[in-house]
């Protein structure tokens, strides 16, 4: 018999498979925090499905003692859509990376988000290809030297959250692989949200792109390098003497120096609101990049909208109501028929 969800622990979500990521990989911490938060979400393991594509992050389902499907490169969102459409009672989680999700799978990521399928997408962003040994990715910075770009990358990178917002994502958040508490908070929020929850996790690859997110992972540096988003609170960050706020004018963010103790209200600092109907505000936040801006961490946007799977169920019910449950004999004999004796 299944253990009641209330009594489940992290162990109930941990499979017997040996985890095979490189030592020091950010994925370990993400896995541990997912396993920790699962029992709190009131989900029993049989109701949970982890779906992944190809890449380091995509090994994730093997380590979860839930249902899991390790699919093909870039297509996890399409598989997840089929699973959720088929059975909306399942809690479906997509695990992907910056290569899997934004290069080969960009098309499917776009469409699962715009359809607002009720799934949670975790995009591990380490700005490099790990499993194929170190090529640059769609989120790598211009100039990054890798085996495939010995003279430096000339691709302009894409910001995962801007991409998601461009597809009108209803829930968008960013968190960091070393911050257990914040990750768990974001995962809980994602599970509570009805519709596609898109989470970028800044994740370190110690082998091919070490310290890419150092200033956001390091406890001292992140106070100034990051900006913690809190609904209803002004966009203010920074340590003593380096306080700064964000003003957003015509959709363009600007850093306002608050070091001299300037008054937040007179400085016209924006107050964070996750619930803006238009994605434009969240898009302004997503456009804030290092080093010119502190990098926003937290929930950018959380708005309600009809889900694909919900509407599909509704249509089925409406069709049943309108036409009655289907009858095969009637169908085969519908329209013009004739009888030969």
């Amino acid at each position, binding site marked *: 018999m299944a253990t009641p969800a209330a009594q489940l622990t992290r162990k109930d979500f941990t499979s017997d498979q040996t985890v095979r990521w490189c030592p020091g990989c950010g994925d370990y911490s993400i896995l541990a925090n997912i396993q920790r938060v699962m029992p709190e979400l009131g989900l029993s393991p049989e109701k949970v499905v982890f779906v992944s594509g190809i890449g380091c992050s995509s090994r994730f*389902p093997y380590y979860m003692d839930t249902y*899991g499907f*390790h699919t093909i490169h870039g297509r996890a969102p399409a598989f997840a859509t*089929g*699973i959720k*459409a088929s059975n909306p009672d399942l809690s479906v989680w997509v695990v992907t990376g910056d290569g899997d999700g934004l290069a080969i799978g960009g098309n*499917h990521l776009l*469409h699962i988000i715009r359809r607002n399928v009720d799934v949670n997408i975790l995009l591990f962003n380490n700005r490099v290809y790990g499993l194929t040994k170190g090529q640059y990715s769609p989120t790598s910075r211009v100039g990054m030297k890798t085996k495939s770009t010995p003279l430096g990358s000339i691709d302009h990178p894409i910001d995962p959250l801007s991409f998601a917002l461009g597809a009108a994502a209803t829930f968008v958040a960013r968190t960091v692989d070393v911050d257990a508490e914040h990750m768990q908070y974001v995962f809980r929020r994602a599970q509570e949200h009805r519709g596609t929850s898109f989470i970028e996790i800044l994740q370190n690859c110690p082998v091919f792109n070490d310290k890419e997110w150092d200033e956001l992972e390091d406890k001292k540096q992140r106070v100034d390098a990051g900006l913690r988003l809190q609904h209803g609170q002004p966009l203010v960050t920074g340590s003593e003497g380096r306080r700064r706020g964000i003003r957003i004018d015509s959709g363009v963010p600007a850093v306002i120096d608050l070091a001299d103790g300037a008054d937040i209200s007179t400085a016209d600092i924006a107050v964070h609101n996750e619930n803006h109907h238009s994605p434009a505000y969240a898009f302004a936040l997503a456009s804030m990049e290092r080093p010119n801006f502190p990098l926003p961490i937290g929930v950018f946007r959380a708005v309600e909208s009809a889900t694909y799977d919900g509407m599909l169920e509704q249509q089925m019910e409406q069709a049943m109501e309108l036409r009655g449950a289907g009858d095969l004999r009637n169908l085969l004999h519908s329209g013009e028929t004739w009888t030969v*004796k």
Partner: protein
Amino acid sequence: MAKKQVVELEEIAIRFTGDSGDGMQVTGGKFSESTMLAGNDLSTLPDYPAEIRAPAGTLAGVSGFQIHFASRNVHTPADQPDVLVAFNPAALKTNIADLRPGGTLIVNQDAFKKRALARAEYEESPLPGLRDRFNVVELPLTQLNRKALEGIDLGSRDIDRCKNFFVLGIMFWMYGRDLDPTQRWLRGRFRGEVREANLRALESGHAYGETTELLPTSYQVPAAKIPSGTYRNITGNAAFAWGIVAAGVQMDRQVFLGAYPITPASDILHEVARYGHFGIKTMQAEDEIAACSAAIGAAFAGSLAVTCTSGPGLALKQEAINLAVMAELPLVILDIQRGGPSTGMPTKVEQGDLPMALYGRNSDSPMPVLAASSPGDCFHTVFEAFRWAVKYMTPVVVLSDSYLANGTEPWLIPDIESLPRVSIPPLPEPESFQPYRRDPKTLARPWAVPGTPGLEHRIGGLSTEENTGNVSYDPDNNERMMHLRDQKVAGIVADIPPLEVVGNEQGELLVVGWGRTRGASTTAVEAARAEGLDVSRIHLRHINPFPPNLGEILGNFRRILVPEINLGHLTRLLRAEFLVPAEVMSKTQGKPFKVGEIRQRIDEILSSEDDS
């Protein structure tokens, strides 16, 4: 009025041709319907351009619909029409070569004016030159139709658009067909003045046929002797759609169809999308890959999953299909083959995808392949594919083609009770559950669906350990699993009945058909045998695995002829598999085989035998 003559015929083939805006498909469809209701056996061939509306009156824009009906069994839409109806010079030019010598040509003489002739690249009217070879009936159809519709409050363009129904009325008179079904259809389909105009055009055409001196004869094709039962008209694509619905009902499972629009498969999606009240879910995905992937996801979640496409789409789906092979999930893939390679001729016929279905995936990736042979057969073939998919936990591909997809035939509606009810194997207890523990008989793994407590497991595309399903790079395990997947698919042969030879069990020549070559092969072999030639015939629905006695049958003939609309796909397979001297009869013109072509090849082969 002089009394008109009525001539009885055994069979007749009519081709309606005109501009793609002239309503030829509707005209042909309505004529077919009345012909079926009159009890004839029939076969049809719609032939339309890929362009939605090519420039009016041009050769590229010609659309046609051929119907062959008889008081005996009909297997093909006929090699040559006996009657050609041409609405404009372009239609005449592109079709006249097919008309049987001495056949009847009915033209709209109002359309044979200077500009229309020029658009069809005629310098002068071709009609005078045709009068010695054909029975040319020139009718002022545009004028007659306008006159009939006088007083109707529509513009002249809309009035002229009704002339296909005027012609249909004439044809209904000529072949003694009932107007009633078409009248009912028009009343349901149109309203107001448009309804009135079409109805009046139809009725006036009929009355005109009765009275005009230009048409001295009408014809009667008595009802065919066909098995008793209730019949309907069906296209291959509609039969697929209904087979999908039937599988869901008979297996008591939700159906999920993932598809991306592609000619000539889209109609399956359109049709299935109408059956939400059967609990069927359909999804128009963002591309072919997603359509297939979503279907596989749905299969993992417990739905009867299906995706439909054509050649270029099948190519895109292959990586996902290979995952379904590896993950051993049930999935049905409908491939409506079309002219290729590449974009090819999207609305024309080809049997081009057999090697891709069998071998188009990396590594050894065994997948069952079925081929439907007539529009109605599509229903039973897709049903069989679902049975295999869930019994053996495997993707199954069903091959059809553009000709089957849109062609129609009278279809004996199956008795629901006669359809097998398929029970899906029960799941093991959690204590003994292993995701890749196989049924000893079928070698299928259990279909443990998310949501089932205690059966949580992970699957994927990586090499998996026998029984446990854990990722494994063990060399021996990999080899064992490779053979197990192969044996599983090969073992489906247990569900395939032995093939029956039509004709002698052994002899000089065997004609091997697959897919829609059935009709032409059947008629050609029947005719040759009637003349005492030593030729027999088999037809393959099951291509992987082959029927159990195929090798034995092939070994009993000196020569083996395989007509196929490609350069020899099945032929090469038979040679490789059975070491027999199979020879291809190839045709790749985007058109089906003619009976005469196969018949001629049979004669050539058998007469060369005589010489030796």
